[in-house]
């Protein structure tokens, strides 16, 4: 009777807690308390109910056949297992989250490439005391003075000095 449903997978709560980002800690704590409550409830129930002492009842109860009838019916009785409606939903949720996670990882990798590009630009730059103004304008295009818009020195609005 033990293998009639999926075995309970051991969850490493410590590792799980590490991976939770700080803004979702409250949700994680709620989940943990609920899970602990459920597992405590499960642990408090023994797996099989105490067996009924049929011989005692057979001796005590006077009515003929009643105990035998009960025993027969009891043995023949099968308790229906509760139907699992949620696991399918959870599985679809997991598929979706896998997809969105892959997308996120792609975007994150693109961002990392971009950051590394900029970092490379900074690291390969010539040092500032070797630069001329031309080199500065080449490395940081925002320092280039717009001589067409402001033809007279200082080539930028006075307020920006």
């Amino acid at each position, binding site marked *: 009777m033990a293998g009639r449903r999926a075995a309970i997978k051991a969850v490493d709560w410590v590792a799980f807690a590490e991976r939770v980002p700080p803004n979702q800690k409250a949700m994680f704590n709620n989940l943990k308390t609920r899970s602990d409550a459920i597992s405590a409830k499960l642990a408090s129930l023994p797996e099989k109910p105490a067996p009924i002492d049929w011989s005692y009842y057979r001796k*005590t109860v006077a009515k003929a056949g009643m105990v035998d009838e009960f025993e027969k019916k009891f043995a023949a009785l099968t308790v229906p297992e509760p139907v699992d409606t949620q696991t399918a939903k959870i599985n679809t949720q997991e598929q979706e989250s896998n997809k969105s996670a892959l997308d996120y990882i792609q975007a994150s990798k693109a961002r990392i490439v971009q950051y590394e590009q900029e970092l490379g630009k900074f690291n390969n730059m010539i040092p*500032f005391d070797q630069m*001329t103004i031309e080199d500065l304008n080449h490395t940081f295009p925002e320092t280039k003075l717009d001589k067409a818009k402001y033809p007279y020195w200082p080539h930028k609005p006075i307020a920006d000095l």
Partner: protein
Amino acid sequence: MLSRLVLTSGSALKNSGSFGACVVQASRSIHSSPQSKAPLPPLPEKGGKIRHGIFPEELFSLLYPKTGVTGPYMLGTGLLLYMLSKEIYVINHETFAALSISSVIIYGIKKFGPGVAAYADKLNEEKVAKAQEVKDVAVARLAQAIEDEKKEQWRVEGRHMLFDTKRNNVTMLLETNYRERLHMVTSEVKRRLDYQVELQNLHRRMEQEHMVNWVEQNVVKSITPQQEKESIAKCISDLKVLAKATQARAAV
């Protein structure tokens, strides 16, 4: 040439970006065309070496092999004497004006040159330091951003744990429900059997009590007056015997 004069006395000048020797500047602008990608030589810190504020060192090193150390000085003295004696250069009032003005200028530069140069350098240093700070901040920010992205990716990898937890919860709830049902069935059957047993016990007890009562009643009814008189006489005789025995004991 005047810039070189400024340069020697202001020997504290380090950064000579725009003062740099025009030769080097030209080579830089040549290099910025897309013909050669070789890295540029670093900008020179100081201008060409000069002696006595005007004469470049190259002249001295040019003449050194043939005429030794005193060669250029002899050349200069000779040229000066030649120009004076042949009156190619005529001494007039402008000579004295030139001498006075140039002595004042030289005195001024020698005295204030280093100060001005230090001030200009300080301004430049501040600009460079600011740019360096901007660069450092940007580099640190980028490195931190890369670290954060990697951390987020690592976090995302743990998403299966959430779903495992959910499935576990569902399984546990189902299991709990099933066990509760089993327990309920057993306890119900047991209750029914216990009820029957209790019922039987009750019947038996009631029968017992009823029988005892009935027997008592019958016995009481069956005590005839004849038996009563006999039992009372017996009681009296018993009491007399007891009294005699007690008196005897008290006398002793």
